[in-house]
């Protein structure tokens, strides 16, 4: 019988303290809290949470194992469907997926599924017996993975477990893709979480070759014809940042969120030890309403700036995870909603001095079903800022398509696939390079589907 108590709150770093450091905001549940929260699950006959999970984790099953204090079994249950639970527990948009469909959420608060997943992953990480990892005998059949982000990692993990000899190629000097360069330390710790998950992949025999920009350093044809890879998975993401297309976007002080976050996360610019500089402004304006906008804003705040987020729709439409918006507000980020920048204002030397914005109102729903924002004539006003960080999304880098004959794309450069198979024999793809910018968990799901398809292809051929 489910325990009819309120959702067990999760402990977090005090907003005033954390606004000045890069340590993780959320401390997560301890074992007692996790067991108590797990006891709220109704164990539905037809669990809607499982249907809403992009990788179909057996959620009620693992939650009941938590309740029974069998944390190892809970980990095994999750691992059947997810290869990166410590990461997904932290960055999935649970409120639109598992938790969003939890029946308890109809009248009250849904079960805190994300926090339970994170607890299970962290607990097992900390209590794992140090056993020498056994490298599985591989079949010797080589598969190449292009890109070490969520899609590539998930695909590599499944293929290695099936006995393939897997090599991941990464263009940057550190693997992890967006987990490493994009999502900040305070939301996803690198040493404690990301590097540990990556180490697990190395332990099962996966090779990672960094500093290889496929398409330039080596082509997919080279990998298949000269290096003997029998199949290739392309999980290169949607890497190119979009800019505003308004006057002043190349003034000194305008950055893509990608640049700002890469400097701080991958290059560790916040640390005195790092040689990489980051622009420190008194006042920073961030345009956009997604997770990346929240990450950039909260990073700027931690670097000592006063931060305003400008978003053209209303609070309800903010695409970021609810938790990130909540945390951003707690930390003192200002929100200018229903507002859009129209011009970046510069001083006489070409440095940003402010952002001219216009107020918006919501009009008729557009093709996405969301009410489209319409500018209110004459409502222009200026926000003072020395930096503008643009977080309006990304588009596809066409390099792989341009350097791989026979690889078809749509007009936006997204690779065309049927069940993850591209138009080119032996080449599979998944994640943002197929879907356009999406989430970590969706990319992981696609990576896993591709692994199954590659296995199928290699056993049939």
């Amino acid at each position: 019988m489910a325990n009819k108590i309120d959702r067990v709150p999760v402990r977090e770093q005090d907003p005033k303290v954390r606004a000045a450091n890069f340590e993780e905001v959320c401390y997560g549940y301890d074992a007692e809290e996790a067991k108590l929260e797990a006891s709220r699950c109704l164990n539905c006959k037809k669990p809607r949470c499982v249907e809403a999970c992009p990788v179909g984790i057996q959620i009620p099953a693992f939650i009941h194992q938590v309740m029974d204090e069998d944390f190892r079994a809970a980990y095994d249950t999750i691992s059947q469907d997810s290869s990166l639970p410590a990461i997904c527990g932290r960055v999935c948009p649970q409120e639109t997926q598992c938790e969003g469909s939890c029946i308890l959420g109809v009248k009250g608060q849904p079960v805190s599924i994300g926090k339970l997943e994170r607890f299970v992953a962290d607990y097992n990480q900390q209590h794992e017996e140090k056993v020498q990892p056994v490298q599985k005998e591989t079949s010797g059949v080589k598969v190449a993975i292009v890109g070490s982000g969520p899609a590539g990692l998930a695909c590599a993990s499944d293929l290695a477990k099936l006995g393939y000899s897997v090599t991941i190629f990464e263009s940057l000097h550190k693997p992890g893709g967006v987990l490493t360069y994009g999502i900040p330390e305070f939301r996803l710790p690198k040493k404690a979480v990301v590097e540990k998950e990556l180490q697990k992949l190395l332990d099962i025999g996966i090779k990672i070759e960094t500093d290889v920009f496929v398409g330039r350093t080596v082509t997919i044809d080279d990998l298949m014809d000269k290096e003997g890879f029998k199949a290739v998975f392309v999980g290169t993401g949607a890497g190119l940042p979009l800019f505003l297309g308004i006057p002043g976007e190349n003034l000194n002080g305008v950055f893509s969120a990608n640049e700002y976050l890469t400097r701080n996360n991958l290059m560790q610019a916040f640390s005195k030890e790092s040689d990489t500089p980051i622009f420190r402004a008194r006042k920073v304006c961030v345009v956009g309403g997604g997770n990346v906008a929240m990450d950039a804003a909260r990073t700027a705040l931690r670097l000592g700036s006063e931060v305003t987020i400008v978003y053209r729709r209303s609070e309800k439409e903010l695409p970021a995870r609810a938790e990130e918006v909540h945390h951003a507000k707690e930390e003192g980020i200002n929100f200018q909603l229903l507002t859009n920048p129209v011009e970046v204002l510069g001083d006489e030397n070409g440095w940003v001095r402010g952002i001219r914005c216009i107020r918006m109102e919501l009009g008729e729903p557009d093709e996405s079903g969301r009410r489209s924002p319409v500018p209110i004539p004459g409502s222009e006003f200026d926000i003072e800022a020395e930096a503008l960080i643009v977080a309006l999304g990304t588009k596809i880098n066409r390099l792989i398509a341009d350097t791989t004959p026979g690889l078809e794309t749509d007009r936006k450069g997204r690779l065309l696939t049927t069940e993850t198979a591209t138009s080119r024999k032996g080449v599979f793809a998944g994640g943002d390079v197929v879907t356009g910018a999406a989430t970590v968990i969706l990319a992981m799901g696609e990576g896993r589907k591709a692994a199954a398809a590659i296995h199928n292809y290699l056993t049939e051929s």
Partner: protein
Amino acid sequence: MFKIVDKQQLTPLIYSLWVEAPRIAQSAKPGQFLIVRPSDNGERVPLTICDYNPDNGTVRIVVQIAGVSSNKICNLNVGDCLTDVAGPLGKPSDFMEIPEEELKGKRYLFVAGGVGAAPVYPQAKYLHERGAKVDVIIGARNKDLIIMEDEMRKVCSNLYICTDDGSKGEKGVVTLLMERLGNKYDMCVAIGPMIMMKFATLMAKKLELPITVSLNTLMVDGTGMCGACRVSVAGKTMFACVDGPEFNGYDVDFDEALRRQTLYRKEEQQANAAAGLEFKR
């Protein structure tokens, strides 16, 4: 890790390094560049490719000490390793697409500013070997910044040298030589400091000579991901790392590009001071 197999000091401030990077040595082409990270906490430094040897898997970079990161690179010795070398990045030079028979007899003028002689070298060599008629101007502030004179001489018909202070070659700037040589070329390629490329482009315009420039903008990843390298080309925002680094000089907004290069000047000066480095400007 990428081992340094040869190191030479070309001038008091400029070093040449041959580095083991087998994949890059196979795929590098004239016009492309590398990203080098000297150490674990080091920056990602964009550097042009000076030469490459696919047979022994090495590439050559030429580095001028201009700050903390380039100083770190130049302090490494034979047997030491660069933590990372990624590339080749960017598009190869446009003339790589021209069939070899068409290159024969084509007249090219290269204008190299200081350490810009390094990326000019593989381009001149490629064209010279294919029968193009190549002239090269190397210009710099003083003789300590003139490099690769002998090597360059072997891959061109005429080599002209000038320095601002007259300490080597003719006294004067590259545009002076450009003007004197006049419009007897099919194409000009200028590689060097942004300010030199700006004035070389103005001179090329005056001479009605088409000109390609190679932009050395700020960069982080060098793969199109960050947009730090964006430049206005023919009124459009382009990324030097993936759309370039070479562009039609006539189309480049040099004043914007010059301004954008100063973005971290303050931080660079602080870092140089902390490391005890001094540079004359």
